[in-house]
């Protein structure tokens, strides 16, 4: 079973370990500056109080394997941006299954009832972009030299997935998970 539990303080050390791993951080916009648990706790207190975001720890058959999160949550326009990573290397192969489970939750009326998800990906991550397209997402633009990382400017691809496009592809319907609700 895929379960999505709201991130708690007890998760922070594990999440920090994942977040600073080379294979994960190379895909993210920022590298943490001298990461430590105190900074992580300060970050957690901030996001915990912020109603425009929610972070879940992903469990696969009882084992925590990664993180998925919504930011820029806007219930007026029913949209949010999102990101995810699988922290346990041997479970990364299941990442392509986690996303459909998440989409089914955020787009369903029983879940968050969103109309659109959007997100940004470093443009050189072709496999990631292809995976999102495989799930039905579309590229809606490119932000040139949007991120300064590893001493160079990097382009960012902007992607989005509309609820209507998602539910049209019935192959993913059966991919369900158990979510601790967003409760802010």
């Amino acid at each position, binding site marked *: 079973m895929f379960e999505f539990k709201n991130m708690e303080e007890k998760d922070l050390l594990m999440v920090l370990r994942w977040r600073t791993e080379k294979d994960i951080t190379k895909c993210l916009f920022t590298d943490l500056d001298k990461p430590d648990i105190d900074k992580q706790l300060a970050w957690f207190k901030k996001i915990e109080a912020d109603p425009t975001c929610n972070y879940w720890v992903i469990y696969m058959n009882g084992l925590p394997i990664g993180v998925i999160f919504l930011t820029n949550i806007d219930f007026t326009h029913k949209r949010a941006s999102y990101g995810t990573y699988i922290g346990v290397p041997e479970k990364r192969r299941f990442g*392509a299954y986690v996303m459909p489970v998440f989409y089914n939750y955020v787009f369903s009326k029983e879940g968050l009832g969103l109309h659109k998800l959007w997100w940004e990906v470093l443009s050189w991550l072709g496999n990631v972009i292809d995976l999102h397209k*495989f799930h039905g997402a579309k590229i809606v633009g490119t932000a040139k030299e949007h991120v300064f990382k590893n001493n160079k400017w990097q382009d960012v691809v902007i992607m989005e997935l509309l609820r209507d496009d998602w539910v049209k592809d019935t192959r993913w319907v059966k*991919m369900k998970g158990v979510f601790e609700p967003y409760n802010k």
Partner: protein
Amino acid sequence: MLELFNKAAVDFNGWCSERNRFDLPITLETPVAGPGSPLDSMAMVSFIMGVEELFEAKGISVNLSSAEALEHWDTFGTMISYLEDGLHVRV
């Protein structure tokens, strides 16, 4: 079952060719994904969905995509064993 597997492998090679990615000879010993596997996460999902669709075409409903099922095999050979032994499906 092997016939069905071979059909799924042929379909999968078509899927790969359409995307100009790679043309993989999927065998029973091929690791499903991860270290040692030529398939990335998306390719694995595509292949497994192809197998499910072939079962459905024969009127057999199987869910190889649940979290429980996904951890039951390392190679496509053990996936077939899972189907035959665990679900008692014979095609």
